């Protein structure tokens, strides 16, 4: 097992990883940018190294500085968290080349699964259901037209290197296709430096379902059930729950098998997430694989009892998975609300000083946050300041718990998305579990 882990991240996920290290008896090294010098993870880690100025490109994404910090503190592994360097195949490769353990899959796996059209090809080859669409990147205009006609409109044009909604275009009819392809290519080129795009069938109002995967270096893979992440705003998840109200035991078994198959098809190792699109007729399609720990991992921890960060560390250290698929049961129901320092109406960020921060407590409430009273929300970084997780014996209890937790949560000095979450939780459709990726737009339209 590792003796010392450097955490190449900040905020709540850095704190989450420090906590796991502490429980495993592993020393932790926090790296930080200048404005984060007094942050909670820096306070709570065993060692601290300043790695750059506020700009993430010069600090948390600064590969030489992160690696030097690991070297000088004698760390034997680096946990990248999510965001920043977590899905950077080059960083993973450099780690491998200098003998530093990157806590995640191999650099080849990151590179392969990061190239959406290549990943699609591999999955097609293994008979995995992917969205109907082009085989690999679109090469010619004729190619684009042929594919779109075959899968039927509407279609979506996506950048191979894309993510977070950039380089995407939805096309409703044939006449608009070529212009959309060109626009997506231009956006992909400027955003990702690679203009390859592919075409998929576009579903109206599907659910976003993802399965958590654990895989050890010996090829043993289990899934930990699903998370329903359909409540999104412009591809940004806001509220997640597990299990999904749309998935019964049979469908879970079916989708879970496919998720495991996806992992096996690329000899995946460490933790990962297989993202599915689920339509209203229980048809599902694999969209992509995320090769890192997800923001919303806590809801899976709550319903399975499995500490995903500890497992991630153990798997990276080469330990075999201690569980079989039959040992995994989902007990109860968990919901996560991402509390962002944003205006709950316009979603404009609300950075500043948090004069008072009093998280809720009690039974079934979990708070993952690196905020504290007199802490700061920095304009340079992500606006998420806390994850509130509510757990209950069933969905009804979990929703009542998290609503109570939101009520109790005191955050003064910045605007937060707490009122938005209260609106979502009060919505009759949401309460019935009738949600899809279009839910939030409808909620705002219906005011």
């Amino acid at each position: 097992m590792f003796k010392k882990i450097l955490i190449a991240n900040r905020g709540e996920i850095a704190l989450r990883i420090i906590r796991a290290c502490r429980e495993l008896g592993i020393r932790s090294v926090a790296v930080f940018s200048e404005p984060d010098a007094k942050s909670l993870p820096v306070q709570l880690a065993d060692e601290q190294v300043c790695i750059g100025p506020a700009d993430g490109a010069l600090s948390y994404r600064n590969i030489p500085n992160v690696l030097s910090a690991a070297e000088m503190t004698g760390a034997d592994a680096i946990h990248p968290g999510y965001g920043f360097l977590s899905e950077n195949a080059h960083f993973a490769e450099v780690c491998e080349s200098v003998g530093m353990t990157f806590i995640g899959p191999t650099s080849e796996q990151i590179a392969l699964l990061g190239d959406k059209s290549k990943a699609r090809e591999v999955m097609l080859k293994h008979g995995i259901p992917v969205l109907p669409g082009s085989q690999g990147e679109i090469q010619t205009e004729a190619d684009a037209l042929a594919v779109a006609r075959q899968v039927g409109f509407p279609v979506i044009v996506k950048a191979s290197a894309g993510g977070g909604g950039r380089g995407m275009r939805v096309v409703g009819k044939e006449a608009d296709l070529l212009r959309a392809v060109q626009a997506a290519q231009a956006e992909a080129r400027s955003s990702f430096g690679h203009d390859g795009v592919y075409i998929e069938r576009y579903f109206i109002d599907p659910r976003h379902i993802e399965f958590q995967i654990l895989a050890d270096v010996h090829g043993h893979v289990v899934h930990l059930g699903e998370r329903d992440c359909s409540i999104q705003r412009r591809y940004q998840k806001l509220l997640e729950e597990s299990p999904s109200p749309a998935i019964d035991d049979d469908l879970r078994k079916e989708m879970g098998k496919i998720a495991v198959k996806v992992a096996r098809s690329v000899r995946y190792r460490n933790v990962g997430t297989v993202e599915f699109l689920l339509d209203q007729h229980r048809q599902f399609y694999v969209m992509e694989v995320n090769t890192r720990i997800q923001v919303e991992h806590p809801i899976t921890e709550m319903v399975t009892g499995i500490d995903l960060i500890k497992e991630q560390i153990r798997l990276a250290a080469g330990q075999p998975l201690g569980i079989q698929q039959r040992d995994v049961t989902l007990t109860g129901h968990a919901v996560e609300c991402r509390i962002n320092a944003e205006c709950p109406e316009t979603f404009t960020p609300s950075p500043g000083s948090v004069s008072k921060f009093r998280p809720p407590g009690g039974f079934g409430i979990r708070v993952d946050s690196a905020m504290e009273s007199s802490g700061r929300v920095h304009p340079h970084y992500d606006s998420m300041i806390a994850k509130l997780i509510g757990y209950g014996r069933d969905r009804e209890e979990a929703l009542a718990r998290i609503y109570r937790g939101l009520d109790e949560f005191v955050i003064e000095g910045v605007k937060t998305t707490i009122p938005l979450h209260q609106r979502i939780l009060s919505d009759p459709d949401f309460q019935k579990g009738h949600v899809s990726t279009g839910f939030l737009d409808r909620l705002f339209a219906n005011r």
Partner: protein
Amino acid sequence: MKSDQFREIKELVEILDESHLTELEVERKDFRVRIKRDVVVSQGPPLPTVTARDESVLSKETAASAAPESSQFVTVTSPIVGTFYGSPSPETDSYVEEGDFVKKGQVICIVEAMKLMNEIESETDGRIVKILVENATSIEYGQPLFLIDPVAIPA
């Protein structure tokens, strides 16, 4: 900053505020406070401004000896994380010694990071007042390496 330091600052602000002076500076082992009253033409009472710096890192390096009046000096900080070396190799002389005069752009040390030697140049003409880091020690981003007196002129 510790809460008792806040308390001290508050007291100092009050002391100054009740006087007719314009500036007050107190320096202790690892703590320095400067309070200034801007002489402004305004409708309200003059506002005191506070500048406080935790100089514990600095003081660790300069020990308890008479610290030079640092505010007039230029501090060269490390732009990267790595290992500090005062000379190109163990066998050769140091790039600079305390008391040496340097030119802007002159290499004054190297910082090794990921097996690469990064040469650090002086940001100014002047005299090396103090080398703040021991040879071959690990340094973090922004860590002060040298104090340079930019107004010193070779005799």
